[in-house]
């Protein structure tokens, strides 16, 4: 059974300025479904505005969906009250992108990390809680003596470890990681990725890993869901997507990856189509797609059996 499943999620936001009276809605997420198995890492990849963080927030129960259903460990939590959700939140926890903004600067690390215990493990005494905090911090590679210090006394990488400790302390089965390493230097990024790998092996955690960085994703993910304009446009195992992707958007993303060595330099050819922009009807990728045909304007954008949403896919190499 999957530890997290979402089915046909939709979400729209009102667009325009805060003073606009028109009821115009902008679709942020359209018909997104996926499952996450125990011990698995699913990466959601896409550019800013693709809806990946919105999906994550809905999966966490932090944002109500317009329609669709969300299951935690097989239980439909879509319509649970905040109170009922709260008692189940230890199942799924979140690690945020910005380790500088996501810790309360006035709270000692021990209090920040231990906060979840007061809610989900309220039977623990203060000294038991302290012990648990110390254990979790050292699990995340931090000295337990850091408990009585404040966030500003830690580096970016250490703060991200603190963020992970805070999520882990309530013993979740799923971690939603929203760009957890993109604010970090490469050397620190490697440390955090190693930590995440080790924790997953030791605890059988499942990761929903939101990222725009394909090198990082290739390193950590078992499966990928590529999002564009609120839809999943391609999904598959990491191996399959990286070796023979079918959707032109995935291709464009892969082609845009930075190279490893100057010998791979090519005469940079700019792909046909516009820089940016999304079609309002039909396949949203049309304005940027080098393979776009007239029938794309009537395409419903649904994923096919092979896991991609495209009428004129790239040929597998």
């Amino acid at each position, binding site marked *: 059974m999957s530890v997290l499943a979402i089915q046909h999620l939709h979400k729209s936001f009102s667009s325009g300025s805060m003073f606009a009276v028109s009821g115009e809605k902008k679709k942020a997420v359209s018909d997104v479904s996926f499952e996450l198995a125990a011990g698995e890492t699913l990466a959601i990849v896409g*550019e*800013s505005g693709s809806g990946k963080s919105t999906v994550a927030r809905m999966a966490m129960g932090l944002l109500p969906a317009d329609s669709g259903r969300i299951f935690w460990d097989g239980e439909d939590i879509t319509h649970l009250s905040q109170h009922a959700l709260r008692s189940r939140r230890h199942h799924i926890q979140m690690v945020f992108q910005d380790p500088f903004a996501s810790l309360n600067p006035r709270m000692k690390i021990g209090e920040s990390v231990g906060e979840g215990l007061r809610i989900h493990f309220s039977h623990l005494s203060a000294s038991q809680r302290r012990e648990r905090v110390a254990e979790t911090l050292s699990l995340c590679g931090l000295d337990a003596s850091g408990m009585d210090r404040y966030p500003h006394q830690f*580096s*970016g990488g250490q703060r991200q470890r603190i963020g992970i400790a805070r999520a882990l302390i309530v013993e979740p089965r799923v971690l939603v990681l929203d760009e957890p390493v993109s604010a970090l*230097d*490469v*050397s*620190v*990024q*490697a*440390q955090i*990725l*190693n930590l995440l*790998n080790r924790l997953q092996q030791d605890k059988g955690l499942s990761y929903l890993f939101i990222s*725009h*960085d*394909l*090198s*990082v994703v*290739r*390193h*950590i993910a078992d499966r990928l869901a590529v999002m564009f304009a609120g839809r999943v446009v391609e999904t598959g195992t*990491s*191996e399959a997507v*990286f070796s023979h992707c079918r959707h032109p958007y995935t291709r*464009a*993303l892969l*082609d*845009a*990856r*930075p*190279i*490893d*060595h*100057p*010998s*791979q*330099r090519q005469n*940079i050819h*700019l792909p046909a189509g516009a*820089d*940016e922009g999304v079609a309002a009807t039909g396949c949203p990728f049309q304005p940027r797609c080098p393979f776009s045909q007239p029938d794309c304007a009537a395409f419903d954008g649904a994923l096919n059996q092979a896991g991609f949403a495209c009428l004129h896919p790239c040929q597998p190499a």
Partner: protein
Amino acid sequence: MIEVSALSLSVSVQGRRVEAVSGVSLTLKEGRVLGLVGESGCGKSLTAQAMLRLGEYQGVERTAGDIRLDGISLFDMDDEAMRRIRGSRLAMVFQEPMTALNPVFTIGSQLIEVIRLHLKLDKRQAKERATTLLQAVGMQQAEQLLSQYPDALSGGMRQRVLIAMAMAADPDYIIADEPTTALDVSVQKRIIALLLNLQKQRNLGLLLVTHDFGLVAEMCDDVAVMYAGQVVEAGSVHEIFDHPAHPYTRALMSCRPGLSADSGELTVIAGQVPQPGRWPSGCRFAERCPLADAACEQPVAADAWRQQTHVARCVHAGEVVR
């Protein structure tokens, strides 16, 4: 040619002067792309900003060394002379396209302001030039764009506007500080292509400040790697990628998650970057370096190891270079 020689800069940390850049030397030539690479806090941005003498407004002080533009020291110039040089000889492209444009003025008025500051053009001519510049950076419907405000533009479009602005007075050198970091990957590639095309067409000297070796591999002719306020290795892009000589460069390159499918452990660099003010007198990387020994406790010269144009600030580099 811009020559940075033995430049040291200090910043103010809680009321104390602390050295943040120590004895950095670089040469930026016309027609070349020089990458200044390092992790946050290594001093790469401070060095780049010093080349326009921008840091002075934020309490950065030069404590030693010099920066010469075609042989003339920037520090001998008065504010007026410096103002003329910024934009017309060397210009800057900043990292954050979202904050580098003023939200209450149109694209046109911001662009025309820069043009008229440097070139003796009337309003109509300046507007024409603004349109041409926007076309040169790949913007369609340039004329309409002039009357738009920055919030109507995406990140990639704003970065193009900023590049157009940097090009406004036809500078000889561009300093680009992480010009693509804030952008989506697909847009990044286009901005890289744009910068490289402009650089080639106009024979610009381009200084690229970045933390990203991928970007260096893509764009640079020459590379300088900084660590803890010093240049620790410098050479041509092929020298650096084929035979990295400094243990820090080697470590930094190998801890990137590769593009190959390998989910094993990534190499990490033990310990942390020493903070400004707590730099050891010897090699600054020694406490994290697997090769460190007693010899590393003495100050190490920037060219302690040298092979043709390739230099490394390491007494053990000869043992590791293949």
